[in-house]
């Protein structure tokens, strides 16, 4: 185990998340991509804490912030989806964009 392999794992999770966030039409699926990106960030922060940080808890705080960010992102995401769904009856980003016109 070394810092590099942990970061590689984090990068892989992040990249899969990027793919999801870019490719998915459904808002909910898109949020799954975002969550995966944050998952990568938590793993990276934990690895930094273990291998680099001189016992400083800052990296742990980053993990906490990432977890909170996930919760907030999900809550806001669902609220927005609900609002759009009610108003426009769609749950797709493309259609939501079309509605602007």
């Amino acid at each position, binding site marked *: 185990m070394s810092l590099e392999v942990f970061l590689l794992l984090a990068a892989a999770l992040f990249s899969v998340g990027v793919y999801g966030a870019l490719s998915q039409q459904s808002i909910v699926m898109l949020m799954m991509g975002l969550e995966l990106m944050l998952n990568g960030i938590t793993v990276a922060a934990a690895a930094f804490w273990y291998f680099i940080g001189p016992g400083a808890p800052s990296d742990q705080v980053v993990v906490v912030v990432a977890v909170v960010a996930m919760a907030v992102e999900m809550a806001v995401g669902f609220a927005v989806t*609900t609002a759009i*769904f*009610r108003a426009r*009856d769609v749950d797709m980003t493309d259609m939501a964009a079309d509605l602007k016109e």
Partner: protein
Amino acid sequence: MGVTHRMLRAAARRPHVLVAAMPTGTPIRLAVEAQLRRRNWPTAWSPADADVLVVCGSVPTGLRTAVEELWAEIPGPRSRTCVVAAVLAPGALDAAKARLAMPNQERSGTPGRSDPRAHATPPDQMAAGAMSPPGPDPADRHLDVSPDQDPAGQGEAHQGSGPDIDQQGPEHPSMSHGDMDDGMSMPAGLAMAERGDDRDGLKLDQLHATLGPLLVGWPAGLVLRVTLQGDIIQSARGELVGAQGRGSFWVEPATRAMYGEAVTVGEAARRTAGCYLDRLGRFLCVAGWPDPAAAARVLRDDVLAGAAHHEVASRFAAVARRVGRSRTLRWMTTGLGVLGAADATALGVTGPVARAGGDVTARYRQWLAEAAEMLDLVDDPVLLTAHGDGRALGYLHDAVTPPEPLLAAIERLVVGAEIGAARLIVASFDPDVDEMAGHPASVADG
């Protein structure tokens, strides 16, 4: 073989029984329930948990489909029996148990059925048989799966697919004759859901489901077709199936008296008290309170068997106190299914529901009060004749009232209720199909 055989024997020692109550089968159901209690056989809540299907009473045309579907959903080893008279209950149960212990019984399907494989096909998507799907014919439902295909194989075919009950449009064509090539390919014969307005303005998916006619604690012969969004009922259409116009078991002594037979007040009161206790038992069962429900059933059987007033009065008082004073039960039922006296009159509702004139709480308390009054009369030797005290006769007679107005009230009150609340509302009305006036048996065939 030895171990399997012994396990089957051990398993069959205490089979779980699914009781399918038919209209006009009330005395048979009571006999079966008493037998089950004596034998210490548990009752099942759904076909998945059942070993033995006991049909109480002859099956009217309108319920044949539902019974067959229920049977098809029971996993093996299993056996079924139809009890057509109360005295036959012990023998029928014995026979059903004996069949259950036979090795390989479940592999050969039901004795006496022409096509055993029909039972090996996976049951339909609707739960519990109780929720019998509104499709026209149960056989059609199995057309999607060829009988030669075993259940596991069917699962392979849909590997990677998940369920979605929200999307079952029961009216989809593939339900009525498996024409899968019709339009879009519907996986597993399930259609996409329709959508409809809901209370949050979200227009979510709708599901058309059927409550009854064979649910635990459900009034025999009542079918409630509901549109669900989530577990909220958006609309309900009821139907009373299997009426034969013979009159309810619960008012039979009073009816005989009206025809001039010599019937004592005690006999009629006994029957009426039994009616309230039976209702209470089923209501408490639906309310998730099995112990007082069991106590009410024991009491009911004792009262109907002719126990003297002093034998049952204190036990009834204990049950009534426990149920009547339960804060939790009151908390769960207050404000549920409110039918005021004026509304009751407008709908033509009579009997205990009208006298209670309120919510579910008011109704079960009304039963408790009236059951107590009736229990005071059980030893009354005075003859009850049509020429006697007319008021008393009417009173003894109207614990069970014509079910159509009750059904109308149910249809109105369950809208907006969650399934659990709706079950309580239905149990608190408890329409009795047998009191449907002068309906020929053919009405039922819907």
